[in-house]
């Protein structure tokens, strides 16, 4: 049994949070079998305060201030950077659109640990929040489709799970802080899209002007009705299409089970009798309207495991996977970060060796390797029971197909789903003319368009931690 520490840092539209969790890995196989190391427990042991995300201006995040917050949280949690084995920094919602977002995220990931990865993108955010909310586990337990709505300050991130696996995502520009007020309920901020939405509803909202409760209710009701459309079949309204952040769900599903996370969720799940303007924004009113909408009323609503902390818990506890336990790799080349994937489809796997070489070469040509200046990994499912001749053929095809990578002296990375990576890696080593860095992993499912990060070996070198970053989902 081995316990590692993982960190999650979420810099959202309105809040910034940090959590630390223990991830326990253990060999589940008996002493007389091939080892099978797995994650057996994830336990968040420290949750930071919830900070307002510091901004320099409307378009820029205050990196210095965020750095201070994170450093002080490391101290409070009594965790040093060197203790961190893995984790993720995620910049979410509207904050992700600030001009210095990616720079800050990269800097923070370095600050937090050697294998803490920077992530971004509405799809990944939806997945991470859904997992943090526990919707994946719920779908497995119920054996039903479960959809999670993570309703934050700037966006609503939607992830759909089936049997524990995410199958679709969507994102809408619906959130609690797209309208912000001062103490006298005068409009301080309104996002562009919501301004247009309000105008279409014949509401004239101007910065500095007092906003009536009735006006906010009309807007919140509209937003709630747009969210309800996610689960309705048929044509979507023009408002719905207008509020889509990047894309809708890829098709209609019959979904009965819904969970809500994000800051707004706390006020959906609980009746709120206090001050509607506690946060000087639209959040609580939006929550009430969602509670009255068909999205809430016509579906079975489950309490999420985490609400406002779903994304940060997802980033800290649910981003790291463990490779299979019989693998081959060259030492001292980790961590490897942001490696793009070329995926060989199951149909292509059945091709002859010569054809497969062509397919790999063609897919590799999608990447300008000189420009990227880093390696690309080849991934496939692989058979459940390769014989030795098939493994040899596959190794030959990979070596020939990945010729460019080998020539550039990048590590050759192969990722399989089925358990055959150790023998495949050893075969590649035998057949390669010159010694070079080889990483052959299994137990990991990735797709075209995914990026992966591979950390330093764990469990006496038997496994490698892997973080999969799905960037294009539900295309």
């Amino acid at each position, binding site marked *: 049994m081995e316990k590692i520490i993982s960190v999650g840092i979420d810099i959202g539209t309105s809040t910034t949070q940090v959590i630390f969790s223990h991830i326990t890995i253990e060999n589940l196989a008996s002493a007389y*079998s*091939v*080892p099978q190391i797995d994650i057996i427990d994830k336990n968040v042991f420290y949750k930071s305060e919830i900070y307002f995300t510091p901004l320099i201006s409307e378009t820029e995040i205050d990196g210095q201030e965020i750095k201070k917050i994170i450093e002080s949280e490391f101290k409070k949690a009594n965790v040093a950077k060197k203790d961190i084995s893995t984790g993720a920094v995620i910049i979410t919602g509207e904050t992700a659109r600030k001009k210095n977002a990616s720079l800050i995220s990269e800097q923070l990931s370095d600050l937090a640990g050697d294998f803490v990865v920077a992530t971004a993108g509405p799809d990944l955010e939806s997945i991470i929040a859904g997992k943090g909310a526990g919707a994946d586990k719920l779908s497995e337990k119920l054996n039903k489709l479960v959809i999670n709505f993570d309703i934050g300050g700037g966006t609503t991130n939607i992830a759909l799970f089936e049997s524990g696996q995410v199958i679709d995502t969507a994102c809408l520009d619906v959130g609690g802080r797209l309208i912000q007020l001062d103490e006298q309920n005068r409009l301080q901020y309104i996002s562009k899209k919501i301004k247009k939405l309000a105008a279409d509803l014949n509401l004239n909202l101007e910065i500095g002007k007092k906003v009536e409760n009735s006006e906010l209710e009309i807007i919140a009701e509209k937003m709630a009705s747009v969210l309800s459309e996610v689960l309705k079949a048929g044509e979507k309204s023009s408002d719905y299409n207008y509020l889509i952040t990047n894309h809708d769900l890829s098709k209609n599903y019959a979904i009965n089970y819904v969970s809500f996370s994000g800051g707004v969720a706390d006020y959906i799940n609980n009746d709120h009798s206090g001050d509607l303007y506690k946060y000087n924004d639209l959040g609580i009113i939006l929550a009430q309207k969602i509670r009255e909408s068909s999205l809430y009323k016509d579906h079975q609503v489950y309490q999420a495991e985490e609400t406002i902390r779903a994304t940060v818990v997802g980033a800290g506890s649910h981003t790291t996977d463990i490779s299979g336990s019989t693998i081959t790799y060259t030492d001292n080349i980790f961590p490897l970060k942001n490696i793009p994937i070329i995926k060989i489809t199951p149909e292509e796997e059945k091709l002859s060796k010569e054809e497969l070489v062509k397919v790999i070469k063609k897919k590799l040509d999608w990447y300008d390797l000189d420009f990227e200046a880093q390696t690309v990994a080849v991934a496939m499912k692989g058979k459940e029971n390769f*014989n*030795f001749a098939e493994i040899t053929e596959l190794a030959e095809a990979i070596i020939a197909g990945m010729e460019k990578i080998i020539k550039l002296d990048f590590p050759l990375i192969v990722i399989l789903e089925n358990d*055959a990576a150790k*023998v495949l890696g050893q075969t590649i080593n035998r057949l390669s003319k010159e010694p070079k860095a080889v990483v052959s992993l299994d137990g990991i499912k990735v797709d075209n368009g995914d990026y992966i990060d591979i950390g330093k070996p764990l469990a006496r070198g038997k496994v490698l931690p892997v973080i999969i970053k799905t960037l294009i989902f539900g295309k």
Partner: protein
Amino acid sequence: MVSENELKTIIEEVIKNLDRNNLGDKESNKSGGNSEIEAGEIPDITEVDLQKEMLVPEANNQEEFLKLKAKTSARLGVWRAGPRYKTNTLLRFRADHAAAMDAVFTGVSEELINEMNFDTYQTLCSDKDEFLTRPDLGKLFSDQTLAEMKNNCQSNPQVQLYVADGLSSTAIEANLRDIFPAIKQGLEGYNIEMGTPFFVKFGRVASMEPISECLNADVSCVLIGERPGLATAESMSCYMAYKAEIGMPEARRTVISNIHSGGTSAVEAGAHIADVIKAMLDQKASGLDLEI
């Protein structure tokens, strides 16, 4: 339990029914003008994946039950006809049992041993019955056999590998062609030199000790057929020991078991075995003393 007579009656019943179906086919063939008897095929009941087969009618939650079944090779939810098994369940049980019996009582084919280019050495057992009833003899070789072994094989190898029929020749037939090259390749990758591999007829795990002493091997390694069960007759194990010697405790052996198509695949197991052997040579230890 079903008595032998009852079983016979059932099988006769089934065969009769099959015949009747065939007759039916023949009738229709006749009307088509073809009077030849068609060489039809009876579906192979052993090809059904029992863990995916749902026999409980009108289950409350079929998906959940299939998830449960996927986790065990136990024959869950086989349903019944009155107080008895259904015909297919019973036949499948008999077929799997027969495969297990075959695995024990047939020998590893000459073809395979020749293909692998292995010499054969026989323990003191003279036939299968003696092998099964006299475990002590399966651990010993005649002086003459040992002299031949010493003469024909490389002495003082880092790794001495042999293959033994053990309790399942079927396991050797199913896995040897794939696991052997994988182990060899893995060892070569670590620059570990393998001595002269061979086959031991009527061999046991503990045939290892006299072999190790005879050839003075650092690591001895046997690929041996496991006692077959109803889940598979093709399961193989690999036992290894550092400086094996007669009288050593069992705790000095390391084992990788469950090598078959439904367990650890032969090629991947082979690659892993090479790693374990490397660890033994590095640590000069095996069994409980080995840290992996």
